[in-house]
């Protein structure tokens, strides 16, 4: 009888303490760690090699849902929105060097001996366009022409991948995007052809051709730009 009483008391105490423990866990030990929905992806380097002023070269990259996201049992998220950002490219591709290049800038942009260029490439981003694939018709992505300010958020290309719509319907979905990345090669100050302005305006009518001439000192340098796909929203 005494044993039964002790066991019953222990069970009752446990039952009474459990909600208290849950409250303690939820409110007092309130340290949370959550995986963000955001994802940053850096496509493999697109190499344009040696180029000449006013050349126009094309490359591309492909972005889609992953195999794990495409599985039938993944029904929680149907749409992924993302932007393509452009950032300075480090000469050595490590997270530390990347952060350093993003947080600093050259003191004299036209001086190839500027210490900044020891760790980061001169910036190519302004001359890269991002053209969407236009599917499904009439297209749900927004591209960016070359000759733009890479630091201006309005110069980020915007993309959307759709697995299913809000009704769970897959008709007209968009599980993949192919982005064409064009390089409109700039000229160097004092060495630009007479039709430089026409070349700029043919790709971006709103651009000021004088803003996109490169300093002479950077001739023969290797230029670079990191493209980052950043997921901004999922629903």
């Amino acid at each position, binding site marked *: 009888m005494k044993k039964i009483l002790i066991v019953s008391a222990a069970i009752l105490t446990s039952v009474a303490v459990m909600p208290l423990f849950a409250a303690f866990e939820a409110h007092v030990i*309130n*340290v949370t*760690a*959550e995986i963000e929905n955001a994802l940053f992806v850096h496509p*493999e380097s697109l190499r344009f090699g040696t180029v000449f002023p006013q050349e126009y070269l094309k490359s591309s*990259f492909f972005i889609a849902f*992953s195999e794990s996201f495409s599985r039938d049992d993944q029904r*929680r*998220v149907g749409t992924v929105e993302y932007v393509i950002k452009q950032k300075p490219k480090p000469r050595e591709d490590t997270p530390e060097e990347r952060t350093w290049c993003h947080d600093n800038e050259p003191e004299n942009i036209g001086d190839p001996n500027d210490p900044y260029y020891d760790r980061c490439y001169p910036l190519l981003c302004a001359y890269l366009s991002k053209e969407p694939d236009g599917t499904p018709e009439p297209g749900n992505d927004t591209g960016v022409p070359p000759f733009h300010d890479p630091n201006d958020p309005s110069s980020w290309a915007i993309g959307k991948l759709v697995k299913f719509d809000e009704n769970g319907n897959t008709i007209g979905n968009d599980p993949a995007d192919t982005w064409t990345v064009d390089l409109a090669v700039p000229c160097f100050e004092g060495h630009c052809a007479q039709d430089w302005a026409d070349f700029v305006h043919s790709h971006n009518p709103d651009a000021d051709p004088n803003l996109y001439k490169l300093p002479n000192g950077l001739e023969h340098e290797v230029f670079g730009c990191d493209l980052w796909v950043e997921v901004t929203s999922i629903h």
Partner: protein
Amino acid sequence: MTETKGKFSNWWEKQTGAPPKTWHKILITVFLLVFLFVFYVTLDANKYKAFVHVVDGKSVIGVNPTSEALDFGDLAKGTSAVRRVDIKNGTAIPMWVSVIKTGDLGELVSVDKKSFVLKSGDEEKVEFSIYIPASASIDSIYKGRVYVFKVPTFGLIK
């Protein structure tokens, strides 16, 4: 309670041939408290599955930005990806946060903050970066686990 203590003393005496001394009792209590503390920290740790699928092709990216796991998606060789874990301290005491990664994926992933003290009310983002090297095998899935331990410092670590 007295009976319980008596039973413990009897058990101790049977095992060791002598009744427990005060320092024995203190040591056992301290050991139990430490065990409970470690048990709680382990139980409270956030445990995430982490994986990446290496795919064929050039500049091919497959994304899965959902928050169920540290899923880096499908990545071709030469591509990289970053995922973040947001850690908030809503308690009144500072916490020492330690991030541990295991498995095959652990070798490919780098963490920007392996351990740090998170003050009361503060928030910190921990970045997990992965780069798919040329030596990675196509169509293989690299798996691992990430543990985020949160240990109350009681002001002992700054």
